[in-house]
């Protein structure tokens, strides 16, 4: 007798991300101090970002331009009328006791981002749209160093550095459309690609230019109500975002299955233990008492201005992915690698523009050239001596049969070190491919004469010795013999 297995409840996770992104401006959002990272404490401060009495903040026009461009790239509607508000809370990282942010009239709303989820096993990818609720402009806060302890708890005083106070940020809030750690990490990476392509942010997570907070709850599959939401902070890589979410989903499912309540709280991802832990419990929603910032006038983005900025947008990562796959015929994997880093994208596109076919260009860049860059720490593709036009020339020498693929690989190290014309190098070294049957046949004769035992074996039925003879002929010609032709001629000779 077998007991019926109880049906296991399936859960789904409902995830939304809040992404803060530092804009790459020279100066702060409302004042003329520098935004450069890593300066000695309190060197980039001024009366405006310190909120001294009587000062008047004035919006940096680059912040508006960058925020609108980011909004357009996220397929948002740009608000024709927008304003700033004061968000009030007491914490010493804010010198004014309020943060200038945007509340009910953000600069951009109702957008979406298309992500491409790559499946390593099958080599295929699926596309998914993640809604963007809103994008708004705000100022960053200062940095606290807690004295007497490395954490807030236990410290007897704190030291404050306001260099970051007033640094311009955009906050991008996603719809709760994300269902897994992988989707969240991919969404965050896509946001970074977009801001980097636009040139509005460097997206550097280590320096805090890109920060993601995650909201996550679980519910039984098919349910339409939401579970209790937990916020997770402190993830400083895309990988950490994915792992923190996967951990949190398991933690919440285990709690629900054990009949324990999920508490509405903020949890910190702890990289060391690979777990999340309680930071603070939220008691009711915070009351920020927003009101319109009286020191700043409203912002009206006119249609002509908006369309001018739209016309300045570059080809975006999603457009490149579609074009590479649908027009250039590249695989999802190649596309992913080539569009992730803009300097690689540029190199690839210049190679193709110089007349090389897309697939071999992708192979050379992702194969031998990447290996060379990995071996030379700190070197990027932009530092290469080999120009994209020269790579294109090399690829075309191979494609046209002028040199063999092997010769191409042999001369690559020299080209990578010194650059220059591959054609000129091939001619100088006398490496042109031998396609004259008479020359190859002469080499075959010599090889067969030199290996009578192997010939005996072949005649005796060991047909895989064919490869041995082809190899010897190629070796004899210094790798210059056309391999395909050599193969045919060797087979013909041995079977004659």
């Amino acid at each position, binding site marked *: 007798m077998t007991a019926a297995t109880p049906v296991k409840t399936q859960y789904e996770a409902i995830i939304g991300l809040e992404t803060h992104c530092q804009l790459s401006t020279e100066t702060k959002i409302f004042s003329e101090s520098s935004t450069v990272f890593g300066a000695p404490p309190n060197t980039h401060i001024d009366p405006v970002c310190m909120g001294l009495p009587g000062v008047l903040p004035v919006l940096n026009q680059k912040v508006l331009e960058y925020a609108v461009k980011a909004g357009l790239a996220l397929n948002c509607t740009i608000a024709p009328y927008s304003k700033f508000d004061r968000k009030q809370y007491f914490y010493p990282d804010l010198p004014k006791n309020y943060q200038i942010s945007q509340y009910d009239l953000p600069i951009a709303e109702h957008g979406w981002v298309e992500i491409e989820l790559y499946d390593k096993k099958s080599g295929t990818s699926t596309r998914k749209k993640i809604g963007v609720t809103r994008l708004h402009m705000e100022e960053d806060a200062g940095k606290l160093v807690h004295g007497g302890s490395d954490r807030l708890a236990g410290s007897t*005083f704190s030291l404050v550095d306001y260099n970051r106070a007033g640094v311009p940020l955009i906050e991008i809030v996603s719809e709760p459309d994300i269902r897994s750690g992988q989707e969240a990490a991919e969404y965050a990476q896509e946001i970074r690609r977009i801001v980097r392509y636009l040139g509005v942010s460097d997206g550097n997570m280590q320096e805090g230019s890109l920060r993601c907070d995650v909201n996550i709850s679980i519910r039984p599959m098919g349910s339409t109500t939401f579970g209790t939401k937990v916020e997770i902070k402190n993830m400083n890589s895309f990988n950490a975002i994915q792992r923190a979410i996967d951990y949190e989903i398991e933690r919440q499912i285990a709690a629900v299955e054990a009949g324990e309540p999920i508490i509405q709280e903020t949890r910190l991802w702890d990289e060391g233990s690979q777990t999340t832990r309680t930071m603070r419990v939220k008691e009711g929603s915070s009351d920020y008492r927003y009101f319109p910032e009286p020191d700043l006038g409203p912002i009206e983005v006119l249609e002509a201005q908006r369309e001018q900025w739209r016309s300045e947008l570059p080809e975006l990562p999603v457009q490149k992915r579609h074009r590479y796959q649908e027009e250039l015929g590249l695989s999802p994997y190649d596309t992913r690698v080539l569009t992730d880093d803009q300097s690689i994208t540029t190199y690839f596109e210049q190679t193709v523009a110089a007349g090389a076919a897309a697939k071999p260009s992708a192979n050379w860049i992702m194969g031998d050239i990447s290996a060379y860059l990995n071996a030379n720490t700190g070197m990027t593709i932009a530092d290469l001596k080999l120009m994209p036009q020269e790579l294109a020339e090399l690829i075309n020498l191979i494609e046209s049969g002028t040199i063999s693929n092997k010769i191409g690989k042999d001369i690559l190290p020299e080209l990578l070190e010194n650059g220059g014309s591959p054609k000129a190098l091939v001619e100088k070294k006398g490496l042109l491919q031998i396609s004259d049957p008479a020359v190859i046949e002469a080499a075959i004769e010599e090889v067969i004469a030199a290996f009578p035992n192997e010939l005996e074996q072949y005649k005796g039925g060991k047909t895989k010795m064919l490869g041995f003879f082809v190899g010897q002929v190629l070796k004899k010609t210094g790798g210059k013999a056309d391999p395909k032709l050599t193969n045919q001629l060797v087979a013909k000779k041995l079977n004659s």
Partner: protein
Amino acid sequence: MSLDREQVHKVATLARLALTPEEEEKFAGQLTSILDYVEQLNELDVADVPPTTRAIDVSNVTRVDVQRAYENREAILSSAPDREDDFFKVPKIVTGD
């Protein structure tokens, strides 16, 4: 419109003001009379009037993104209640609602 003691207590807590129960009672009365006074405006029909968020009608006041260091940083640091070298120093931070 009336404001009760509980609401006064909440607003005071958010503003980090410590009020005695007597003060809460007193301010509840005073704030209520202020609100009542302002409430007279509700007699007007403003259904077709757009809300005014500021008195002066200007928009798009912006500046160019050109960096200029503030020359009197020391004055800002030294006017703070406490400092340690080039940091502002603040007392132990107490969180919790």
